[in-house]
Structures are given as C-alpha cells and as structure tokens.
C-alpha cells in the first residue's frame, strides 16, 4: 500500500508557497520590475471601478477574460497587486492539484514526488516568473494542466464527467490564451481511437484486431462513428460555443467581432508582444533562432528534461501517445502564424505536461532502480534549463525579471522607481481636476495604474477624448506623448508624429516638462 501525504500537509505547503511567491513578488516589485501585462490588467481594473463610461466594454471585452475577471476579486487589495495575487493564486492552485493528484492518483511515494514538485515550484525561474509577474500565464498553466488531467482521468474511468470537465477547462484555457483554440486541431487525430476504447470490441484482442473489427463490421462501424462524433461534439461544443458567443457580444457592443483580439484597448498582446522583425538584430545565440518549425518543438523539449525523463518511461496506448503529442502539434500551428517571439509559457506547457504524464501514466514500480534517479536528475536539470532559457531570452521584460530575481543584493536596497511610476508621480504633482492631462492608454496603460486619481486625466474611453485630441487645449493642460523610440509609438494617437501635426494644424506650442526614455510630458 502506497504511503500517502496527509491532506493538511498539502494545504500547509500550498499556504507556504503563497507566502513564498508573495515575498518574491514584493522584492521584484521593490526592485522596479512590473510586467506590462500586469499593468495592463491593473489599468483595466482601475478603469472599471473608477470611471462610469464604457464599463461594459471594459468588463466584457478585456482579454484574456479569466485572469482579468479573477483579478477583480483581488482589486480591493490594490489595482497593482490584483493581477499578481491572481497569478499567485493560479500557480498555487496548480501546485496544490499536482500534489493532490500525485498523492491520490499516482503510484509514487511522497519521498519522490514531493522533492520533484517542490524543486520545480520553488526554484524554476519560469514558474516563479509566472507566479509573481501578474501575467495571465499562471491561469493558462492551471487550465492546461486541468485539461490534460481530465483527459487522462477520462481514459482511466471512461465517464463522461471527465470528458465534460476537459471541455469546460479547455474553454477556460482558450479564455486565458486564445491561441489554444488551435489545440482543438491537435485533438482531432486521436478522438477516434479514444472512442474505440469506449466501445467494447474484442477487448482481449490486440489493438489492430479491434480496429479491423470496428471498421469492417457494419454495426460496429456505425457505433464507432456515432461515438466519435459525440465525443467531438462534447469536447468542442463549449469552446466553440463560448468563442462564438464572445464574438457575437463583441460584434454587438464593439462593432467588431474580434475586438477582444485586435484592439490595443482590450488585449495586452496587441501591444505587448515582441515582433520578430524588431528582434532580428538579437538573433545570434538566443532562443529566437530556434523558433522555427520542428526545431522549436525539439528545443522546447530539450529545455524540459523532466518531460524527456518522463517520456522515457511512458508506456501508453496509441491515443494516450497522441494526447502527449498534441501540444507539439499545437506548437506547429502556432509557429505557422506567430510573428512574435514565443515567451517562456510556450516552453513551460511541456513541463506541466510532464507532470500530467508522470502522475497518470508512469508507474513507480516500473524500473524503480532507474526511475527515481532519472527523475530527480531531470528535475534538477530542468532548473538549469530554465535558467538557460532566461539567459538567452529575447524578451526585455523576461531579461529584466531574471536580472532582478538573481541579483538579490538589490532586493532590500532603497526602492527603485520605474519609468512609468516616475511619470505618474510627475502627473500627480502637476495635474488637478481643472488642469487635466491628456493620456492615451493604448500605450500609456503602464502609467495609469500609478496615478493617484483618474479625475486628473482625459482618456480614450471618455466621450470628450476625440474632441480633446483634435484640439488639446480645449480639455487638457498637459499631454503625455510617446517618443519615437517607444515600442508602442505606432499604437497611440498621442505620439511624436501626431504632435507635429497638431503643432501645424492648430498652432500648438507645447512646452516640454519631463522627458524619460519613452515618454515626454508637455504643457500646452
């Protein structure tokens, strides 16, 4: 009989993880790191609660919806903290479920699985990054795990409960990262085999004989077709239904069905991703050079030794093998259209997959002498590859985070003020309700969360914004303009180009009050 970990120990460990991640998020924040996606979500929360205009549009179209809506729960703790609290929550939930599943469903003893899980969740920089940065990745990881967990549980039990749960979690996953809609394509190939498993055809025969019977006997073929179609429908119905409903609502209320994907006001990814064109000069010896078809999957696998170790012991049926392969198929589809750098989450999904396989498909009794050392070594190696990833990343924010995280000397030094916070402090000092600041949160969403009050600014969601942009002195005294070097220069109307036009058109005479690397604050 397997020795189990008492439930309260898992709960205590989870609470300790909360404290650990809270601490790390605090120190990285103190050291000046704030992720722009977290700031984007913070800004939307602020707009939701502090303005009366476009409430519906903010609530209904801000994407990814699940991390955003979950952050609302934490907004009383502070707009800046809410997305971070949300990412900590999802990471710890993932930690909790993985431990619980190891404890209940796997054949491993706590002596093995506890070190593996703790090492990964405490030391892996990618996991720490997801937990403490306030990004939506944490929610994606959690739902990704739940989808595959449900699949493997369905294979074990053959009850429609887990099939439904996989469908529900898949919908949630899509609403954390819309790219996962392509995962449905990856599920196509193996559903037929899954459905065959559910039909009681010559169970004692080899699989080939079962396939032969299922395809050549008319009644069996009909049953197989019906069951396959039924499983497809049950898995795909909710994700497609939810996406369709969301499209319809966007179309009705924003006059654009894909507003949630294409608008910089609704989706951080529109402005937050690093496009490959802009990164080509950093091509040599970085992760970017491996982000091509086939190479990427191999590279991601190489950076996940735990999955390699797990696959080494994996013995499954054909459909289980296809299930394991499906994230790789998904990656291929992503690479077809992705023109941006694939950040850490696209690697970490494989790590989550490794846990799923380890829990549900690896027996600790199989090659025990080799299994334990291999898994422990792979886990330790996984920390190393995580570090390697961050050292070679092309993402500025990931680099910044890693540098802050590894430079512990800066943790307790006097608080470092970020560029966004500095501008916000300046606006807080100069502006009041009579002397407002014109701000376009398409690019300046990183500044808004630091402001003292939204009453001092004119934002695009306000009806007066269009008028004020046409003739700024009519509604504002100051203006925050994106410099040409600002990565988001092209996403905002308040950029250097439009400023030049304004000067020409209405004879505007702006006076520069503050200049930072990316922004200039003018007085009009």
């Amino acid at each position: 009989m397997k020795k189990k970990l008492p439930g309260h120990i898992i709960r205590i460990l989870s609470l300790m993880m909360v404290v650990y991640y809270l601490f790390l998020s605090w120190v990285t924040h103190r050291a000046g790191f704030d992720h722009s996606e977290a700031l984007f979500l913070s800004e939307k929360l602020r707009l939701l609660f502090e303005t009366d205009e476009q409430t519906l549009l903010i609530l209904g179209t801000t994407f990814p919806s699940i991390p955003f809506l979950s952050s609302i729960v934490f907004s009383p703790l502070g707009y800046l903290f809410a997305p971070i609290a949300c990412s900590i929550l999802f990471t710890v939930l993932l930690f909790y479920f993985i431990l619980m599943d190891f404890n209940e469903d796997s054949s491993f003893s706590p002596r093995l699985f506890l070190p593996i899980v703790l090492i990964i969740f405490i030391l892996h920089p990618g996991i720490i990054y997801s937990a403490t940065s306030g990004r939506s990745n944490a929610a994606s990881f959690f739902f990704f795990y739940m989808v595959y967990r449900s699949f493997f549980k369905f294979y074990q039990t053959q009850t429609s409960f887990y099939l439904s749960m996989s469908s529900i979690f898949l919908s949630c996953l899509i609403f954390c990262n819309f790219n996962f809609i392509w995962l449905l394509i990856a599920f196509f190939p193996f559903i037929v085999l899954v459905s065959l498993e559910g039909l009681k055809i010559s169970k004692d025969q080899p699989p080939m004989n079962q396939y032969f019977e299922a395809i050549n006997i008319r009644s069996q073929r009909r049953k197989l077709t019906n069951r396959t179609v039924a499983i497809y429908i049950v898995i795909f119905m909710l994700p497609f239904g939810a996406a369709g409903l969301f499209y319809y609502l966007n179309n009705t209320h924003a006059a654009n069905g894909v507003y949630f994907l294409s608008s910089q006001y609704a989706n951080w990814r529109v402005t937050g991703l690093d496009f490959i064109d802009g990164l080509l000069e950093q091509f040599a010896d970085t992760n970017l050079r491996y982000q091509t078809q086939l190479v990427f999957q191999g590279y991601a696998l190489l950076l996940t030794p735990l999955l390699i170790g797990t696959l080494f012991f994996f013995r499954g049926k054909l459909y289980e093998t296809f299930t394991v392969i499906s994230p790789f198929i998904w990656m291929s589809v992503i690479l077809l259209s992705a023109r941006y750098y694939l950040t850490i989450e696209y690697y970490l999904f494989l790590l989550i997959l490794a846990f799923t396989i380890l829990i549900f498909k690896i027996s600790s009794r199989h090659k025990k002498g080799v299994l334990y050392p291999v898994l422990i070594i792979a886990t330790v190696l996984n920390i190393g590859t995580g570090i390697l990833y961050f050292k070679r990343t092309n993402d500025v924010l990931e680099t910044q985070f890693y540098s802050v995280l590894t430079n512990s000397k800066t943790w307790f030094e006097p608080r470092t003020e970020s560029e966004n916070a500095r501008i916000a402090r300046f606006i807080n000092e100069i502006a009041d309700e009579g002397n407002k600041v014109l701000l376009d949160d398409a690019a300046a969403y990183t500044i808004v969360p630091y402001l003292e009050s939204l009453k001092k600014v004119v934002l695009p969601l306000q009806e007066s914004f269009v008028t004020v942009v046409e003739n700024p002195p009519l509604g504002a005294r100051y203006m925050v303009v994106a410099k040409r070097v600002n990565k988001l220069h092209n996403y905002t109307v308040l950029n250097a180009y439009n400023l030049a036009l304004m000067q020409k058109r209405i004879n505007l005479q702006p006076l520069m009050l503050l200049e930072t690397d990316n922004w200039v604050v003018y007085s009009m």
Partner: protein
Amino acid sequence: MPLCGLHNMVTAGLFSEKKLQDAEAIANDYGYATIKAALNFGFLTRKEYVGFLEEEGFPLIDIRAEELDLLYLEQCDLQHLNAFLYCPVRMEADGLLVAAGDPMDEKLIAGLSSKFDCPIKMVAASDLDITWLVHKYRGEYYVKEAVFSLMRKDPESSGIITFTDPQLISIFGMIMLFFVLLVVNFVKTAIFFNLLLSVTFLFAILFKLFLALRGSQSELQESVTKEEVMAVDNSTLPIYTILLPVYKEDKLIRKLIWNLRALDYPRDKLDVKLLIEEDDDKTLNAVRALDFPANFEVIVVPFHMPKTKPKACNYGLFFSRGQYLTIYDAEDIPDADQLKKVHVLFNKLTPDYVVLQGALNYFNKNENFLTRMFTLEYSYWFDYMLTGLQTVDTPIPLGGTSNHFKLDKLIELGAWDPFNVTEDADLGVRVFEKLYRIGVVSSTTLEEANNEPFNWIRQRSRWIKGYMQTFLVHMRNPAHLVQRIGWKGFFGFNFFIGGTSVTFLVYPVLLMFFFVYLIFDLTAVKALFPPWVLYVGIFNFIAGNVLMIYINMLAVFKRRYYELILFAMLNPVYWLMHSIAAYKGLWQLIYKPFYWEKTNHGLTKMSHSSAAAAASTT
C-alpha cells in the same frame, strides 16, 4: 377438508393437483379464496373457468344487472368480499342469494350461512363483476380515506388548497409592487426585472449543469452488481406489491401481462394490483377477454373526485400486502431483475432510506423528433440529475413510476396526495422533509415516449402544474421548510422544483427580447435597456441555451445513444414546447388545479422488441 370448485376441476382432469396445491398455498399466504389465487396468479384463464362452471351447472349471472339489496352487502367487510369474491345479492324465498366467483366453495358457504343465519343459495358470477360491485358499494370508506387521509393527518402537506391566504397576499402584493415601481420609475423597474429573469434563468441552468456533472461522476457505478442479484435466495424474498393504475388502457393489457411475466421474482410473491376506475369498462372487459392466465388482481376504484392517479394508488394501498411496493404504468417494461436489485439495495442501505427510484427511459426513442428529445431529457434526468441531487443531499422529485417504497413507511408518510397532479414529485419532497432518504437504483424501466405533440403538451402541462402545486404546498411556510430540510435542501428545492417551472415561463419572454433586439433593433428597446443590461441579458440567454444543449448532449453517453447527440441542438425548440405546456399548466393551476390531463398511451408504432431488433440490425 372443505372442497371448492378447483377440487372439482382436478377431479374432472381440468386442473393439476400441483397447481391446486400452489394456488392453495398462495391463498393461505394472502388470505384469499383459492379461486382468487388461481385466477390472479396465472394458474387459470377466466375462459376455462367459466366453461367449467357452465358444465357444472353454474352459468354466470350478470350480477351488475341484478336487483341488489344493500342490506346484506353492507353487513360484509370489503376486504373479505374482495378476498373471497362474493357478493350477497338479495333474500329470496329459499335463502340468501349470493353471487360468488366460486359457487362450490364449501368453506365460504358455511361461513355465510353462519353469518346470516339462513340458507345460502349460491350462483356464479364473474369475479371481475363481483369485484366491481363490491368496491362500488362497499368502497366508500376506503375511497374517502384515500382522498382525505393526508388532508386530515397532515393538512400542511395536502394540496387541497392551492394558494393559501398568505401566498395570495404575497403574490398580489408583488404584482402590485411591480406596477407601483413601474409608475415610479419605469426604466429602472424594467431593467431590474429583466436582469432578475435572465439571471434566474442562467442560474437555474447552471445548477442543472452542476447536478448533471455531479451525476456523471458516478456514471458507471452500479448500486447493485449482477453477482449480488445472482446471490439472492428466492425463498428469502418478501412479498412485493406492484400497483398498476390504468384508465382506458384496454390495448395495453396483453402487453402488460408479458412485461410482468418477464420479471425475475417468484410469482407467488408478486402482489400485482391493476387499479381500474369504476367507469372504465373498456379495461375491465379487456381483462375479461384475455385468453391466457392473468397475473394480477383487479381492484376497482369507486368514483370520487378528484379523479387522479394518486387517489387510485392510495385506494390500492388498502389491499396491498407487500413489504415493498412499486408503481408501473401499463406500458412499462422494467428490467427483469429490478425488484431483486431493490431488495438487495434496501438491505445494503441504512434504514432511513425509504424509497428507491429506478431510471426511466424509452423503447421508442427513434420514432420521431419528440421521442428523441424526450429520450435525451429522460436520460439526463434519471441518469445524471437524480444521482447529482442525491450527492448534494437535496429533495429528489420522484419519477411517475418505478419508485420502490417500503410499504409501512409509505403509509406512515401519508402516501400520495390525491390533489397533486405530480404526486410523486410531491412525495419525494415530503420524504425529505420527514428526514427520510431517497436512493437511486441502477435499473431501468422502459416506457413509451409520447410521440404526438398535443398529447405531449397535455402530459407536460400536468407535470409542470404539479411542480407548481408542489412548490406552493411546501413553500407555505418557508422558514419552517428551512428548519426541516436545511438551507442546502431549501436552495435545491427552490431551484429544482420552483426554478424548473419559472425557467419555462421565462424562456419565451427572454426569447422575445432577444429576437426583438436582434431583428428589429428597435430604438425603444435600446432606450429601455442600456447596453450593459442587453449584454448581460443576451449573455445569459445564449449561455443558458448553450449549456442546456450541452447537458442534453451529455445524456447520450451512459446509454450510448450517440445517434441522438445532434438532436440536442434542437433543445431550444423543445423548450418552447415546454413553455407552451408551462403556460397551460399555470392556467390550469388557477382554474382547474386538480384536473388530471390524461396522457394517451399505446400511440407508438414501435414495440420494445421491434426497437431492439432495429437497433441490432443497424
């Protein structure tokens, strides 16, 4: 030893000694005349017996046409009259004329002679006519008990009053408040009620989804295994009463007998009662015309309003002798081992389980759109929802048939409410209120799915009206209900019993809003409802529909009805039919609360065997 007609039949070589012994054993166990046991337990056909009586010089008289002197009949107890199949007709010059099922029953003759202290002149009459007559004239006390017993013992649980005064005051108060609010602020009131309706709609469906998912977790669990059923020792089985309330089901009688014969339960321990209404000569004659032995006892329910199935069942209870009791409809095809499973499960469960619900499904599922939708609905209801309800410990509304009771507990609970048209759902809640429990047995009874739209609406309007009645009865004192069943039970009851009717009533209203907004894009609608209200409303409506379709889709898995999955997409149409039925039910609740909308059975062109054959060849 006193002789009876059957002894003479044995002597004449028309009946075997073995059968006689078996019939006598049953007669002793049940306290019946031997002829009653022989005619009702499948030993003898009525036609054979009538032929024998004529040969013996006892031609049947038409007792229903005879002049009856009630003075003598009233001196006899109905239970005895019914058990020994006789009826004192009138006093004649040469003695008391008594019509009997067995005019050669010496024990009966001796007993009657002693009772009336006069010579007895026996004539033969049909046992069915005697039964009809004695119940008609001597069943008054029993039928009144069947109707008013619950009202007398537990007035709080009786549905004789549809709306209590406080309920009426609350309902009209709310309507008045609604109008006052409309006058004070039309737009805000409209917004509030729009949101209330759409949120209730979505919440009720989410609750159903939750229950269905909970239920699907135990999809493959068998509460009783085949091995456990195989291990049952027949000699230890108790008497099992089966009530078969019928009304003008003459076409189904033959089918009924075959279905009962298929039950794997000792014949002598099956106490089957066919409950026929007094004015239902069609069914009575169909029984009379049978040319093979019947395996049920006919009980004639005397006329009394309300003319409902629960009243008939309550009446049948007085003549039931089983330790367990179940109800089947005439067209039902229960799993052969269902009764044994129930026995095993009752023995496994704690004593507070007093009723077990079997799953219902349909044998004619592929007949048309309605039968397909009905099958999907029943599949998710019985296979998922009821199991889900059981896991969350909230009241389970029992299904119309295949609910198996412990008879003593059923009587203790006050049996069925004759004023409630979904007496089974009401009883389910009452069981929960009295702190007993309901279990779900993994056994199926196949029924005939309603395949005709108007017939379907009639049936469904009764069900929805019954749910409304049940809701009103148990919500007479909400605080008291919470006290008895707890908040969880209260919440479950409100959303499952109350919410079901409300969602059907609300559905067309939401649908209308949706289409007005979608097609006409009326400025007035936009002025009335700000965009966020429309957003929430549309979200709730579409999400609710999608989820309901999804729940229906789940239903196909347990029974492998995969071919029906696409029909789940038509659920919104099916719901519209529910809404029509709901409004009809609401109208009847107000004007004809106790009216029993009769569902016509036997409309299907498919039999169970033809359906099974069709399934196996495809």
